[in-house]
């Protein structure tokens, strides 16, 4: 099949009005900048949240264990997760030295399993 000759579509060319087209391109660039800025802002927020999450979880675990130990002492039953309390003590000491606990360490402290360091 031989190809039909092209039709002149240049009247529909956006560049026939270069100023208008340049303005559209520029507007698009400005909006792209906004997308990048928004993405950077979201990344910053996520980084902050991620930085705080583990210390906050560690503190929450400590409070829970303290409550559990208090409850056990009052009711006369052995404290649950005694090994968890030991893990927690190790975590607390590590955190004081600047070590942020990992998720596995926290889980071990809460569940009473021995951590792998």
């Amino acid at each position, binding site marked *: 099949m031989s*190809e039909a000759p092209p039709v002149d579509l240049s*009247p*529909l060319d956006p560049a026939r009005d270069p100023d208008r087209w340049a303005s559209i391109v520029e507007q698009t*660039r400005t909006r*792209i900048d906004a997308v*990048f800025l928004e993405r950077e802002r979201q990344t910053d927020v996520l980084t902050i949240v991620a930085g705080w999450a583990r210390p906050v979880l560690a503190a929450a675990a400590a409070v829970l264990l303290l409550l559990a130990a208090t409850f056990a002492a009052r009711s006369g039953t052995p404290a649950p997760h005694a090994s968890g309390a030991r893990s927690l003590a190790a975590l607390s000491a590590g955190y004081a030295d600047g070590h942020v606990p990992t998720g596995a360490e926290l889980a071990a402290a809460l569940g009473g399993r021995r951590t792998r360091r």
Partner: protein
Amino acid sequence: MEETDAQLVLAVRGGDRAAADRLLQRYLRACRAVALAVTGSEDDADDVCQDGFITAIARIGECRDPARFGGWLLQIVRNRARNQLRARAVRETRAIREEANGNTADPAAAAERTELRLRLNAALQALSAQQREVVLLHDLEGWTHREIAERLELPAGTVRSHLHYARRKLRDLLGRADGDA
């Protein structure tokens, strides 16, 4: 050597603003051609091509195959153009109206250009949406058959036949309009 789409997409994901600009230079006109093919309105096409491109950059993490960014982007533009078409009430094209109102140094030449654009747009409406995309991308944007086939995800033979049919139909309609005048 020119970066591939995949390289540029990965760079944009990594926060490279210049890579986004290269994708803009590579694709914005094609976005407009596809938007024009769907909406039949240059004003709408100007808006939709921007919106579609921005959406693609904002959602670039969702582009599953970066090598196929072009096809993915044009699909976003096509969807937005369809939405625009649905939302649009009967509305005249602002630019055409302004030109027709004589807001130019040479009103006669402007009127002639406006007339030509209206005729071309009317003739394009006689084609299917896919034929319009093919003929605009090939004859206005200078894309090759292969590029169109890849980015519209069509067989090469279909691209050729769409182009052939679209050109013949346009020539027929525009020639007939000349004969009627």
